[in-house]
């Protein structure tokens, strides 16, 4: 069987999702039996235009990124959006709560209008090009990444969960964050992370994006019972950027 030719590309992000691939440790060697990385700037010096699968990390925040991404899409048979920044915009979405000029001035002061500092509101990859598979999470769950790579190598359609983090949280037998009077986004957030945060005593802040049909109205309705307001909920939901879901 010939190996899948894979290229990694990064846009605005922390590169933590690529780092997860390193975090496969010994399994990297197994991974390399299935795929042949032809471009992976963070790991190797080669560059290539000949790939089957393009893995895109990061959000799109500039016109030039958009052009680069479109060129990648043209060459790739399969395009995967890797991580929260690529699948939903991730934390980069927080920028969109402000006016862009204000954002630039806040960081670069009087130099804000230098051309190389230009920026526009954050876009997820699928707002620019067609995405074949999404691997959500901030960072990605490396087990899910591995599973998806193996599915592609097997010719099988990978399936990511469309149920809430609560499912995995319950399987871990965690004490529910609501019992501590905290707002946890678990009931509306897409599972697949093994409920990492609640398992470490922290509420879920929705880094994997929401399930296909999140009951946001229910969430609003329930807040008062925990002594919280809609604004508290809204703040949480905005963290990993899904304004539209709240309204």
């Amino acid at each position: 069987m010939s190996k899948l030719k894979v290229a990694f590309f990064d846009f605005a992000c922390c590169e933590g999702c690529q780092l997860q691939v390193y975090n496969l440790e010994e399994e990297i060697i197994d991974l390399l039996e299935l795929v042949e990385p032809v471009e992976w700037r963070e790991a190797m010096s080669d560059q290539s235009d000949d790939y089957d699968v393009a893995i895109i990390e990061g959000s799109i925040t500039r016109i030039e990124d958009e052009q680069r991404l479109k060129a990648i899409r043209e060459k790739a048979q399969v395009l995967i959006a890797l991580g929260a920044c690529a699948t939903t915009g991730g934390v980069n979405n927080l920028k969109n709560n402000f006016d862009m000029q204000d954002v630039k001035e806040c960081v670069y002061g009087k130099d804000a209008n230098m051309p190389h500092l230009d920026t526009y509101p954050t876009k997820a990859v699928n707002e620019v090009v067609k995405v074949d598979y999404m691997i959500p999470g901030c960072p990605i769950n490396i087990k899910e990444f591995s599973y998806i790579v193996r599915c592609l190598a097997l010719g099988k359609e990978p399936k990511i969960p469309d149920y809430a983090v609560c499912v995995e949280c319950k399987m871990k037998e965690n004490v529910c964050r609501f019992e501590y009077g905290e707002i946890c986004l678990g009931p509306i957030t897409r599972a697949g992370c093994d409920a990492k945060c609640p398992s470490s005593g922290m509420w879920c802040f929705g880094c994997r994006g929401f399930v296909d049909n999140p009951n946001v109205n229910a969430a609003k309705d329930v807040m008062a019972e925990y002594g919280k307001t809609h604004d508290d909920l809204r703040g949480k939901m905005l963290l990993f950027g899904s304004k539209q879901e709240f309204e």
Partner: protein
Amino acid sequence: MCKCDSNKDIYLPLPATLGKVQPMTNLESFFSCQLDSGKELGHMPGQFVEVSIPGIGEAPISVSSSPTRKGSFEMVIRKVGNVSQSLHGLNAGDKIFIRGPFGTSFPVDDAMKGKDIIFVCGGIGIVPVRSAIQYVLDNRDDYGRVIILFGAKTPSDRLFVEELEKWREDKNVTLLETVDHRDESWSGPEGVITTLLPLVKIDKDNTVVVICGPPIMYKFVIINLLEAKLKEDQIYLSLERNMKCGVGKCGHCQINNIYVCQDGPVFKFSDIKDIEEAL
């Protein structure tokens, strides 16, 4: 707590080998298959098996051939997802894995005996019903009139084309066909399957009807049959649901209180008419 053999495993699929593999339409292919143990599958018409491809998954598939035809059994599979897709990539001689047969069957040996039989099949619904048709034809003297109604979306969606021609020529069988949308290759009737029913003279006291097709077909066919004064216990139908285990444990195929995998897939209409989620 249970007397069964603790090494027996209801989830263990057994090896089988594909015989013939043949595309039938854009979406459906035909597969014949033999258990590697050399044993017969031992099913009755209407039952299904769970077909496995290791690493890909498992899917419930009806047995489409009659147990009267020995040696191998036949399936028709529509390409819709992982297992079905990968089955389509297999060839004669390849291995697949089988559990079953499971579920209930058409009452070919009791309620149907001696009766006129009307088979009403919509689209891929002909797949499980074909097993019963073959069974009835192989024991032709045990039954009254045999009437087959078949409706496909378009002429190119017709399944078992050669067999349909054989039935059409068989003096002992009445075959009526229709398509929802005609094209130049089709000179027969156009219209939904219920348009065929008035063409059949139904002996209301001496008929059993077997129905299988897409969910919305059932309602209309049944209304027509009841109007023709057929009783609810003369109608049998085969239902489909999401199914993971095939043996009444996983809960997915539950329709209110019944399990399609165990109480079905073949049901007597009178048994499920009051079950809200059934039709």
